């Protein structure tokens, strides 16, 4: 979904420097910073603290213990069940995005460890059609949860999604039902689900799996909400509060447990998961 395309990327900038360059210029402070240091710092500018965009692969790396990431399961691609064409064919849009990102769809799942605690981790990727949830995202989340249950590990989902994948129509909407249905298996097995909301966590993802964490953590700079600002502004003639749908809005209104800086996310997750190791 492109609902968010024209919105300001609060504190989030895609790193567009050519891949072979060792240095990049921070758009916020203007400093030339060593790319590897940025990577090692969870894509946070070492000079000014600005957050750069993090791909799903980069998040996997920055959260899991080095060398523990183990992708699993099959590679899945959408069937384009509606043979959908808008300004262009969905099939082409997907193929092009796959080529550009190296992803099959808007999520990566894998096993790994965080400070030694085994987990199953799912990371959504906003670059893939706005991180929208279609058949593949729904299926991969389901498989990740099933793997967590089979291995008796906690499950972590890092959301970054504009919502449903419009191009898959009702198949997309029903992924909300699907992920929530499978999520119950974790609860029945007494295994924890930690939901991490980043920029943006909205629409059908926010209104299903992402809101059902036993613990819900928001990354600083996250956008959290159901309806898009534009939709709300069009429906009602209300002035939106300044911090509307920010992580502090969500915290103030009781929707999330904690706000963490990206640099601290890994430690934070280890701390949270620690309580559940060996529980029930």
């Amino acid at each position, binding site marked *: *979904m*492109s609902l968010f395309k024209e919105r300001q990327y609060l504190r989030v900038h895609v790193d567009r420097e050519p891949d072979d360059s060792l240095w990049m210029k921070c758009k916020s402070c203007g400093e030339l910073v060593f790319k590897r240091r940025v990577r090692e710092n969870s894509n946070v500018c070492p000079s000014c603290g600005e957050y750069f965009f993090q791909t799903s*692969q*980069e998040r*996997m*790396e920055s959260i899991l213990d080095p060398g523990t*990431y*183990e*992708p699993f399961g*099959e*590679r*899945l*691609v*959408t*069937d*384009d*069940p*509606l043979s*959908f*064409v*808008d300004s262009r064919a969905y099939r082409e849009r997907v193929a092009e995005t796959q080529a550009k990102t*190296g992803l099959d769809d808007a999520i990566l799942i894998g096993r790994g460890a965080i400070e030694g605690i085994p987990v199953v981790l799912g990371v959504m990727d906003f670059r893939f059609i706005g991180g929208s949830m279609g*058949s*593949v995202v729904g*299926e991969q989340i389901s498989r990740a949860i099933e793997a967590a249950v089979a291995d008796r590990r906690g499950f972590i989902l890092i959301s970054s999604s504009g919502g*449903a994948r*419009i191009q898959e*129509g*009702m*198949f997309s*909407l*029903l*992924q*909300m*039902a*699907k992920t*929530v*249905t*499978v*999520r119950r298996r974790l609860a029945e097995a007494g295994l924890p689900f930690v939901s991490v909301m980043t920029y943006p966590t*909205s*629409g*059908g993802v*926010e*209104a*299903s799996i992402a*809101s*059902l964490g036993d613990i819900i953590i928001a990354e600083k700079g996250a956008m959290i*909400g*159901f*309806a898009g600002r534009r*939709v*709300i502004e069009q*429906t*009602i003639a*209300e002035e939106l*509060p300044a911090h509307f749908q920010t992580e502090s809005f969500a915290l103030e*209104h*009781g*929707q999330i447990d904690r706000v963490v800086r990206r640099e601290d996310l890994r430690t934070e997750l280890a701390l949270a998961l620690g309580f559940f190791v060996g529980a029930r």
Partner: protein
Amino acid sequence: MTDERTLDLLEAKIEELRQLNAIDGMDLSKEIARLEEKLAVLRQDLYSNLTDWERVRIARHPKRPYALDYIASVFSDFYELRGDRIVGDDRALVAGLARLDGRPVALLGQQKGRTTEENKERFFGMTRPQGYRKAKRLMDLAERFGFPLVSLIDTSGAYPGVESEELNIGGAIAENLETMAGLRVPTVAVIIGEGGSGGALAIGLADRVLMLEDAIYSVITPEGAAAILWKDKERAREAATALQMTAPHLLNLGLIDGVIPEPLGGAHKNPAVTSAALKEALVRHVNELSAIRLDQLLAARYQRYRNVGRYTTRAADASRGAP
């Protein structure tokens, strides 16, 4: 092709002729009969080949029967229960107990208004967090007492507004989904008009999902899709087709379990006939589900939603690996 209004005018003319015939004693009966035949043919043409967009318009028709109309005609003894016990009472989602063919059921219905007054009260049929949390309460009540749960879905979507976000509307919808996924009673949902995205699905994760013939059910409104995907609101017709949001399409895609027939031109042309068909379908499905053992019912529901989606497995190749 002739449109609905022209046909309505023609019908009115025929009625005038019939009255003239009766009063003046001049015999127009043959001419009237011929006109009636013609009208029937035109109507058949118009409605039996409805485009998706025409169905969208019927689904939103201001004269279309709403939830409370069906609650009055299909059920008996409706006993409304109000309030979420937390914040308020959302009049856009009515809830209560009722009897379906004598059997007590828990009932949820999304309710639009007809007048400006009513629409103000009913928030144009858009459900707020208060409504979803009231629905949750009814789900829990249904489970406690073993009442089957029936949802009548008719909303353009959950209400988008500041208060909705403040009251965690996304979380409320998610919680309803989680509750319905595990609810230990039979559940039937019927889209009676508009099935608007997450706002509809929130009370629609059921064992049987039915649609009235001219209802729609979609991840986004055609207008919303047109604005986002075509950058052009005027292309809603195209979007309506592309999204396959009508009952026949969704049945064909295997996403719903049945289509309840409507009279030519839509439910509002003959509400009584529509109610009868709705009642027949509800009674049948509730009876069927009630005969299934609970563990099997839950297992079937699990499989249904676990397996929804269309994807293909890609052959593993060298490009895959750790980052």
